[in-house]
């Protein structure tokens, strides 16, 4: 995809490569890399650094039986699940997380909808559907929030975000994203903490919607 101007910072790419990124964020990184050749190349470069470190690490003694077990098992059946392909605006890893089915939208008021993909101790990841010209409630963040645009666009105090663009918001950012005119804005949004809303009503609704 061309025209992407907001990319993944190195700290997140390295944590993704090293496998330490919480799963909600890992999904957003995998989805962005599916759309962005620039970040795919940068991820490959970090994996080259990881490979170089393996290459230079001291060999440990392995048990004799491990070698035999592996060499004897080469002809055994090996379970390798086929990856889910991209469907419409949803990249492969998102379809994987949706188990191959289209998102089931739930209304969250003000014309907006969401589909929670995963919600657990590490945080949550959801799809958001924001009607053109509609604002997402003004909110700050307890932790980190990654928002990847899949369709349409939104704007906030920090800039314009179109398809493939990734916005990174942390505890310091109070922002009011507004969906651009045109197609509804569909985003993949991940947080490692509950969002805090500044107005009363959404705060009451927060436990209900698990935002």
């Amino acid at each position, binding site marked *: 995809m061309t025209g992407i101007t907001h990319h993944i910072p190195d700290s997140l790419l390295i944590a993704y490569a090293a496998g330490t990124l919480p799963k909600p964020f890992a999904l957003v990184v995998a989805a962005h890399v599916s759309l962005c050749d620039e970040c795919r190349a940068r991820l490959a470069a970090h*994996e080259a650094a990881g490979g170089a*470190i393996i290459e230079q690490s001291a060999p440990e003694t392995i048990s004799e039986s491990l070698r035999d077990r592996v060499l004897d098992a080469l002809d055994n059946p090996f379970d390798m699940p086929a990856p889910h392909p991209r469907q419409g605006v949803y990249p492969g890893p998102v379809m994987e997380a949706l188990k191959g089915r289209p998102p089931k939208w739930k209304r969250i008021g003000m014309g907006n909808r969401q589909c929670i993909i995963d919600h657990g101790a590490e945080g949550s990841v959801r799809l958001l559907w924001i009607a053109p010209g509609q604002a997402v409630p003004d909110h700050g963040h307890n932790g980190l929030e990654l928002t990847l645009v899949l369709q349409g666009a939104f704007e906030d105090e920090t800039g314009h975000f179109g398809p493939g663009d990734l916005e990174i918001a942390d505890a310091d950012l109070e922002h009011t994203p507004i969906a651009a005119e045109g197609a509804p804005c569909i985003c993949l949004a991940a947080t490692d903490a509950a969002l805090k809303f500044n107005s009363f009503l959404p705060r009451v609704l927060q436990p209900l919607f698990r935002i």
Partner: protein
Amino acid sequence: MMLLDDHRTLAVNATCDRLVVSMMAGQEQAQVSKINYSIQTEWMLAVRDDRDRRAFAQLFDHFAPRLKGVVARSGAPSAQVEDIVQDVMLTVWHKAHQFDPERAQVSSWIYQIARNRQIDILRRERRPLPEEIAQQAEDTTPDASQILGLEQETEKLKQALNKLKPAQREMVEKAYLGELSHTDIQAETGLPLGTIKSRIRLGLERLRHELKIIGTP
């Protein structure tokens, strides 16, 4: 030296079965020379193209003992470390058809597989992975200069890693082997990301170029 039909000279130095003919820009000369891929790349290509079990055993002997240390370091319970190494090496055998030396060195490809399998096994859930790039069917001729270029860049990256001060080296290893969280990595000012980035810049350009070619229908 031999003469081609059109009387250009051809230098033949065929000590290896992988040969490349490169036209020298601006010169009417074709040169055939041996390609010195790294031994790991040779093993991996033999596994991929010929299902060569001896080559796989050599890959195993080289990588399994290193993987054992790396997997143990990133927090796997000791009882499971060899099971993970076994799974990684079997994945290398079964996914060999996906190995593309124009895009990744053997060590980085194995690093990737090791992270994936370790997470899948320890957390019993599948790690979100980017879409695979569809290889073009007609693109079967390996681009030797691309492969060698990546190997050279990785070699320089290794040298750069070796020149780091011990404390910096320790931080880099921790970051890439999964001992630091993303917030730790962001906060860690001692992490010599600049060194790594400048070393992989050229390799990156090559990868971008390669992805552009693959991505063009």
